C-alpha cells in the first residue's frame, strides 16, 4: 500500500528478515568454500563457485517451497511467509551466478554462441537417462527470472493478481526442472548416494507438505452449512468466535470470514486483494482487519481499506437467531457498508 512505488518496501521486521537471509547465505558459502578446499585442494575456483551457488539456490528453493504449506498447516509459521519475496529474489541471484559461471566455464570457449552451445553440446533429446541437463537448468533459470523480476507490487497490480499468481505458480515447474537438472547433471559425475538421498528426501518433504495442506484445505472447501427457510446459512454459534478474531466458512464455494469486533459481528470475503491472503486468519488491529500475510488492512463494516488506500472486498449480511450466526450467501458489491450486528 502506498501513494507511489518504492524501490523496496522495508520495515524493521523485513530488514531483520533480510539480514538473516544474507547472513545465512554468506555463512553457507564460506563453509562450502572451506570444505571444498579441505576435501579437494585441486578443485578450481570456478568449479567451487558453480557448485556453491548451485547448491545454495537449491536449498533456498526448498525453503521457499515449504513455507506456503507450513503456514496453511500451522499459522505460527506466518512470520516467515511475510517476506518470502526477498527470499525468492535472493534464490534467483544465487541461481543466476551458478548459471553464468557454468556458461562461461563450459560454453564460451568455442566458436559457437554460448546460448546455442547450451542447447547443442548434447543432442540426446530423445533419451531419458542422457537428456541434456544444461537445457533444463537454463529453462528453470528463465522461469526464475520472470518470477524474480516481477516480485514487486507494480506487477501484482498491472499484470492483475490472477495472471501474477499463475506466473508465480511456474515455480513448481522450475523446481521439477531443477531437480532433474541436478539428477542428470551433477549426480552423473559425482555419484554420491548421500546427495541423491538428501534431494529425494527434499522432494518427498515438499510434495508431502503441499499435498497434506491441499487435502486439509479441500475439507474446509467442501464444508456444507444447513440452510434456513430464507436460504441463509447457519455457520456457528456467537460464542465460537473470539473477540478481534474471525472464523472462516465456505459459502457457495467462496470462503468468507466472520469477525467479532467490540462484541459485534461483520462478514467479509476471506481473500485479501493484495496477494490473496486469508483475511480470516488475521486479527483486528486498531479497528482494522489486518491480513496475516502482508498487513493489508480493511474496515470490518464495509470491507474497504482505510483512506488513502483503495482496496475493497465483498461484504456479507449476517443475522443472529437464538445464539446461532446465519450468513446471507448472496454477497454485496465490494466495499458495501453493512451495519455490524450485536450478539
Amino acid at each position, binding site marked *: 500500500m*502506498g*501513494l*507511489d*512505488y*518504492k*524501490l523496496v518496501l522495508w520495515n524493521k521486521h523485513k530488514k531483520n528478515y533480510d539480514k538473516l537471509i544474507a547472513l545465512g547465505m554468506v555463512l553457507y558459502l564460506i563453509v562450502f568454500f572451506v570444505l571444498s578446499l579441505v576435501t579437494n585442494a585441486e578443485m578450481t575456483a570456478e568449479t567451487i563457485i558453480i557448485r556453491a551457488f548451485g547448491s545454495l539456490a537449491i536449498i533456498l528453493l526448498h525453503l521457499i517451497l515449504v513455507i506456503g504449506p507450513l503456514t496453511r498447516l500451522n499459522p505460527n509459521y506466518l512470520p516467515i511467509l511475510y517476506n518470502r519475496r526477498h527470499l525468492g529474489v535472493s534464490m534467483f541471484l544465487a541461481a543466476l551466478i551458478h548459471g553464468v559461471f557454468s556458461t562461461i566455464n563450459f560454453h564460451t570457449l568455442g566458436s559457437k*554462441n554460448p*546460448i*546455442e552451445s547450451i*542447447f*547443442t553440446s548434447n*543432442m540426446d*533429446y530423445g533419451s531419458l537417462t542422457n537428456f541434456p541437463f544444461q537445457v533444463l537448468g537454463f529453462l528453470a533459470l528463465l522461469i526464475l*527470472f*520472470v518470477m524474480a*523480476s*516481477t*516480485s*514487486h507490487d*507494480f*506487477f501484482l*497490480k*498491472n*499484470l*492483475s493478481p490472477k*495472471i501474477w499468481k499463475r*506466473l508465480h505458480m511456474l515455480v513448481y515447474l522450475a523446481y521439477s526442472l531443477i531437480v532433474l537438472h541436478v539428477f542428470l547433471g551433477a549426480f552423473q559425475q559425482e555419484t554420491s548416494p548421500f546427495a541423491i538421498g538428501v534431494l529425494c528426501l527434499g522432494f518427498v518433504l515438499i510434495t508431502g507438505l503441499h499435498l497434506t495442506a491441499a487435502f486439509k484445505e479441500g475439507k474446509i472447501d467442501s464444508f456444507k452449512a444447513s440452510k434456513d427457510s430464507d436460504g441463509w446459512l447457519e455457520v456457528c454459534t456467537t460464542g465460537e468466535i473470539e473477540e478481534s478474531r474471525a472464523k472462516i466458512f465456505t459459502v457457495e464455494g467462496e470462503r468468507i470470514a466472520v469477525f467479532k469486533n467490540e462484541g459485534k459481528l461483520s462478514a467479509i470475503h476471506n481473500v485479501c486483494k493484495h496477494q490473496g491472503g486469508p483475511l480470516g486468519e488475521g486479527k483486528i488491529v486498531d479497528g482494522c482487519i489486518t491480513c496475516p500475510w502482508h498487513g493489508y488492512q480493511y474496515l470490518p463494516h464495509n470491507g474497504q481499506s482505510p483512506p488513502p488506500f483503495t482496496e475493497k472486498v465483498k461484504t456479507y449480511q449476517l443475522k443472529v437467531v437464538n445464539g446461532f450466526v446465519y450468513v446471507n450467501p448472496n454477497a454485496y458489491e465490494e466495499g458495501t457498508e453493512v451495519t455490524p450486528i450485536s450478539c
Partner: protein
Amino acid sequence: METVINIFIIALGLYFGLGLLFGLYFLFAGATTIDPLMKESKKVVRLLLLPGTIATWPFLIGKLFQSKKV
C-alpha cells in the same frame, strides 16, 4: 532438432529485444497512464521494474491498449 533450437533461440532473443524497447517506453511514459501510482515513482524504481517488464511485456501491452480504448 538444430532448426528447432535455432528458432527457439532467435525467438527468445526477439522476445527480450522487443521487451526492452517496450519496457523503456512503458516505464517512462506508458505506465503512468494506466497506473496513477507511477506518476510519483522515482527513476531508480522504474529501472528496477525494467527486467520484469521485459519478461512480461505481452501482458502489459494488452493492458495498455485496453486502457487507451476506454
